[in-house]
């Protein structure tokens, strides 16, 4: 235990030292919420990866690859497709963010649709949907610490230890805001996805060379993809990848990454840096999981595959490193979630109805983050058997933000009535269908409730765009927003003067 817990302690101390040495002082709320829009491509890439891939990748998706096989690769497809979306919307989102000092996703929706209430609705959907994932992330640390204790701790004791560690870590998230999150994401990301990929590749080689495990050893069912005649339905995989790709940018803690960059170039370069890393990491993880299904003990506990194989292959030192890697990934996701939620509480809920100065916004964000940490820590220590289902259902709901978000960015038509009505209709449709048929809809050939909700949402948005025409003034305002993006692009291409917003 000294080796495993010692490794965790050393890593934790290194992250804290990095944060302490960075000497962050937030001068205003934009500094606190989006790090003053000051980060270059390397920080952006690692920050995206560290928020996108939580520690549960090693347990939940590693376990899925070990138990269900190639179907788990859907996470790879949607994780890369979502970066294409990031690439496409990088310019308009960043330009509007910089020009109008936007700090959150609801800020952007409020600007585009000229509505204060859409800000509140989007913030509430984002915050409520994110809490189950925050709690799940904390509980997942229980598995980590149980393995680090070599079975000396029971799962409930290990959950308490995990929650205490991650809650303690939030001291620095609360104090340092987004700048602290991004700086620590860089160090954590290097450990989780670069060192993690190297360990995964090493373990794959160990299984092939030392254990004689190859793809040929695997059962045929490991290569099944839900198709025509399958239990899930022929469109199940399509639905998983589509909702995963467009849903990624609906999470407030992912979306805010678009505001932390120091320019469009950094955002696009960060995409080019992140995708090869993401590809190598995810392919290695999923192949590792599939092959590891043949390692004794894994089939009985597939979600523990990462720890079981690490201990088997490299003993306590490798188990300790495996724990550090999962903790690094978990910290990035949890910090990002808590920081973004705190900023939303101050900016989109309280600050939407009361006039607050910069200092008050920062104080409210810090208090919000503290309360959220305490609430999620308390929930994580409770037995909540339906939590995972709730989290999955939350995903079907939050992707309803996608229609006003993406159409709002790329289409000048569309108004607040369609945006709000579509989101609400899509959300209600998704919830009703999910309650009636959890997971997937057999009558819809395997589409998920969120996908059907998106169709309803889209119909309402487009219908309202044509049936409720924008006023002349509103049309001019929206066209001016789009013109600003094009002018900045034209200015960049010609190297000319950039026109400032009115």
């Amino acid at each position: 235990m000294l080796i495993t817990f010692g490794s965790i302690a050393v890593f934790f101390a290194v992250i804290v030292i990095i944060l302490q040495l960075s000497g962050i002082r937030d001068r205003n709320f934009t500094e606190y919420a989006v790090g003053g829009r000051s980060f270059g491509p390397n920080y952006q890439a690692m920050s995206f990866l560290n928020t996108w891939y939580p520690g549960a990748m090693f347990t939940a998706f590693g376990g899925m690859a070990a138990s269900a096989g190639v179907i788990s690769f859907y996470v790879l497809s949607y994780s890369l497709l979502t970066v294409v979306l990031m690439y496409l919307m990088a310019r308009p989102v960043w330009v509007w963010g910089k020009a109008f000092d936007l700090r959150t996703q609801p800020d952007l929706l409020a600007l585009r649709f000229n509505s204060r209430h859409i800000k509140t609705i989007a913030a509430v959907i984002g915050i409520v949907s994110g809490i189950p994932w925050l709690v799940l992330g904390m509980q997942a640390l229980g598995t980590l610490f149980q393995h680090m204790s070599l079975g000396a701790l029971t799962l409930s004791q290990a959950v308490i230890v995990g929650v205490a560690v991650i809650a303690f870590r939030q001291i620095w998230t609360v104090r340092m805001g987004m700048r602290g999150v991004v700086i620590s994401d860089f160090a954590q990301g290097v450990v989780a996805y670069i060192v993690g990929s190297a360990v995964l590749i090493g373990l794959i080689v160990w299984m092939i060379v030392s254990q004689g495990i190859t793809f040929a050893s695997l059962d045929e069912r490991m290569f099944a993809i839900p198709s025509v005649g399958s239990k899930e339905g022929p469109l199940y995989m399509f639905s998983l990848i589509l909702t995963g790709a467009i849903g990624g940018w609906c999470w407030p803690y992912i979306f805010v990454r678009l505001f932390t960059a120091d320019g469009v170039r950094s955002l696009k370069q960060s995409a080019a840096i992140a995708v090869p890393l993401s590809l190598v990491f995810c392919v290695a993880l999923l192949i590792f999981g599939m092959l590891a299904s043949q390692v004794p003990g894994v089939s009985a506990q597939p979600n523990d595959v990462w720890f079981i194989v690490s201990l088997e292959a490299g003993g306590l030192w490798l188990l300790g490193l495996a724990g550090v890697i999962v903790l690094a990934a978990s910290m990035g996701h949890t910090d990002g979630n808590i920081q973004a939620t705190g900023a939303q509480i101050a900016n989109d809920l309280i600050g939407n109805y009361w006039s607050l100065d910069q200092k008050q916004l920062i104080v409210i964000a810090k208090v919000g983050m503290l309360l959220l940490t305490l609430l999620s820590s308390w929930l994580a220590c409770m037995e909540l058997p339906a939590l995972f289902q709730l989290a999955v259902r939350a995903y079907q709901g939050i992707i309803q933000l996608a229609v006003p978000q993406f159409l709002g960015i790329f289409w000048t038509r569309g108004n607040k009535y369609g945006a709000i009505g579509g989101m609400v209709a899509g959300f209600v449709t998704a919830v009703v269908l999910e309650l009636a048929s959890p997971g997937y809809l057999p009558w819809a050939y395997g589409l998920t409730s969120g996908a059907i909700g998106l169709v309803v949402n889209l119909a309402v948005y487009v219908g309202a765009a044509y049936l409720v025409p924008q006023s002349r003034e509103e049309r001019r305002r929206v066209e001016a927003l789009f013109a600003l993006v094009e002018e900045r692009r034209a200015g960049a291409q010609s190297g000319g003067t950039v026109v400032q917003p009115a």
Partner: protein
Amino acid sequence: MGGCTMPEIRTRTRRAQPRWIAAWFIVDAVVALAPPLYWYFDGKADPILGVPAAVLYFIAVSTCIAASIVAAYFADAQSGELA
């Protein structure tokens, strides 16, 4: 808010953006999402280049997506789009 009209600005921008980037992004979406493609690879364990066909399908799709983003970045950087 500016001296150019929307159509003028859009025309200038369109000329500067390589169309093949948009085409490649569309191909990404098609190969990742088109159901007939993944239906075809359902249960296919025969090795291609030493990797089962079903696994290779996902790796090939992902490599295509990753390559498109890297290529788009270099094309944009070269065209001055990111200046």
